[in-house]
């Protein structure tokens, strides 16, 4: 039989390939570019870091997050894969078995489900299954969330499926600095990490210091306050900060916490805030039932019941499939819906 090889997938970069130049000084970058810099640094730090995904090579990914990495590191380390998410994850498992640190890009949130079995049944369970003998230092990058007027399957928030799965760490970043620092931490982690990137924030700029920063499992108080604890992550961190500003004008002091780590949740920071404020609002784009907000509120209620002055409030997506673009403004929590939640937890309506 004749074999046709269309590509030479293991070639090293040529001698004239551009050298990867790491970020060495503080710079203002978009969140997408910050992830790109974090990936570059991780690849420079450890030759076992390889990238796998659809269109991540010459194109640089549909969001350009992997721009220039193919040219700089070659096709041995930046692997344009066939269009098969289960195989992207499943071959990453085999690479991890051999000591590699694969970073998989899932093109869109709604495309992760063909890879769901490999994530839940294999990636998440290997360390436990083998009593620690086999580690899965795999990072799975997922652009997530809505607000970009996209077609079906391009705006979802599937994080709760993964926070419900033991053995995975789940991260959601909200800004350029965390995007840079936490992608490096995620890749360096010996545990598998789902790394969610809020796609409508890719182009928002922020200052990035080329440092690892606080450990990724730590939540961060982004706006201090005394009356309400407002918990969120991803794209809604920005909206929550706006809500805190608006409420301040009405004399309400909101403490906004960017959870950053969705599994495990940093309950030390959350509990300390709730004991101070006595009122809790959780907001996320994902649907309400079975969502992370319910879990967090249940835990707060168990641990801080006597500190609570009002029933906690959820401001979330509705229990509907992600709607068509012309309806998404009626689905996504926005400034007004968060402020409505604030009014409810304050007993104003």
């Amino acid at each position, binding site marked *: 039989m004749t074999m046709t090889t269309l590509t030479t997938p293991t070639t090293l970069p040529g001698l004239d390939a551009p050298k990867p130049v790491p970020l060495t000084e503080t710079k203002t970058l978009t969140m997408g570019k910050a992830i790109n810099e974090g990936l570059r640094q991780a690849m420079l730090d450890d030759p076992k870091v390889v990238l796998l995904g659809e269109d991540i090579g010459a194109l640089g990914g549909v969001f350009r997050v992997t721009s220039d990495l193919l040219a700089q590191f070659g096709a041995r380390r930046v692997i344009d894969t066939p269009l098969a998410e*289960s195989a992207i994850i*499943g071959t990453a498992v*085999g690479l991890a078995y051999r000591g590699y640190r694969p970073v998989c890009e899932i093109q869109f949130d709604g495309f992760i489900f063909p890879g769901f*079995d490999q994530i839940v049944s294999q990636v998440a369970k290997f360390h436990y299954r083998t009593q620690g003998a086999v580690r899965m230092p795999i990072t799975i990058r997922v652009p997530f969330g809505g607000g970009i007027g996209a077609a079906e399957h391009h705006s979802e928030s599937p994080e709760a499926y993964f926070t419900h799965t033991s053995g995975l760490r789940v991260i959601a970043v909200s800004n350029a600095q965390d995007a840079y620092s936490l992608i490096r931490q995620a890749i360096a982690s010996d*545990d598998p990490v789902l790394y969610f990137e809020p796609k409508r924030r890719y182009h928002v700029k922020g200052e990035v210091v080329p440092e690892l920063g606080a450990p990724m499992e730590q939540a961060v108080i982004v706006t201090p306050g005394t009356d309400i604890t407002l918990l969120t992550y991803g794209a809604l961190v920005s909206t929550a900060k706006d809500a805190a500003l608006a409420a301040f004008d009405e004399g309400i002091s909101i403490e906004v916490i960017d959870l950053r780590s969705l599994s495990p949740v940093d309950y030390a920071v959350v509990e300390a805030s709730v004991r101070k404020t006595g009122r809790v609002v959780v907001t996320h784009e994902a649907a309400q039932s079975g969502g992370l907000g319910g879990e967090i509120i249940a835990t707060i209620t168990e641990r801080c019941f006597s500190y609570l002055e009002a029933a906690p409030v959820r401001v979330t997506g509705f229990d509907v499939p992600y709607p068509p673009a012309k309806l998404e403004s009626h689905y996504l929590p926005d400034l007004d819906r968060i402020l409505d939640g604030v009014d409810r937890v304050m007993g104003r309506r």
Partner: protein
Amino acid sequence: MIDFSPQLVQLLSIDGERMPRPDFDPWVDDLDGLALLALYRDMVVVRRIDTEATALQRQGELGLWPPLLGQEAAQVGSARALRSDDFIFPSYRENAVAYCRGVNLTDIVKVWRGNAQSGWDPYTVQMATPNIIIGAQTLHATGWALGAQRDETDAVAITYFGDGATSQGDVNEAMVFAASFQAPVVFFCQNNQWAISEPVGVQAHRNIADRAPGFGIPSLRIDGNDVIAVMAATRIALDRARTGGGPTFIEAVTYRMGPHTTADDPTRYRDPAELAEWKTRDPLLRLHRLLTKLGEITPEVEAATQAIADAAAAELRAGCIGMPDPEPLSVFDHVYSTPNATLERQRAEYAGYLTSFGTQFDIAEQNGTV
């Protein structure tokens, strides 16, 4: 040149006659009487282990056991073709492969007794532990092979799966990836004719081996009850992978003489005449006939082989029954490689709960095992 045409490759007839075939013979010309006797001994021992494990399940010592009865040649012939640095990604029935790999007999049954999800450290024998999700391991093998390719070693990944698995997306995706990247991986399909109660015709309208060339992967269809053909085909596939030839697909045509697992009852769906027919193709029987003709089988050899098999069975039984139960709090161990605050809280709470019944648990010691 190897003929990759779809005709069934057979080098040892049912009557124990060595059948010449010019393209395959050079790959097994080192198999003299002693080497064949060693393969026979392996097959006798793994059949004895398999029988003992089935008995242990019937006696309540194992929760479940997936018998390999009838598939000894497919497993021993392929396993004995491997190099120690090749890596095996099996399903859950490759207990003869594990035996050939030197896995401790007690470790083989640990999973089936319910003491652990994994019986051994894969890196000590270069063999992954059983994967129960059908076909999932074929992707792991392909990924491992991509790593080997990048490391510029000539080690090869081999993955075992059944006829049922060939319907899974993962197996087909693995073939796409392996072909695209010319990964050094061998797809070893044991077509044992049955996926629990579904005959192979439900999975494939044509021979399973016919599928691989469509992916750009050469395939061999071999008599899986012929240990010589199995070894030759596996060596050919390994050599192709080692020398940059990429993946090969082997369909070893065999038969699951027993149930799917000890929980299954094949009398509900299988014609006894079919089993009777396949018994005439028994892999041990035909090798025994060849060895008899070669003068390798003597009463002393028979007795010595049986003694080794019985000793293995006794070791398995003793190891199984003597296996200590895991410590209760070890249920929390190894979920993550680093401590996890949420999980540590659950561990502490459950330890406190257990202690309320008057049992002491050393939390610090348990924590040390994460």
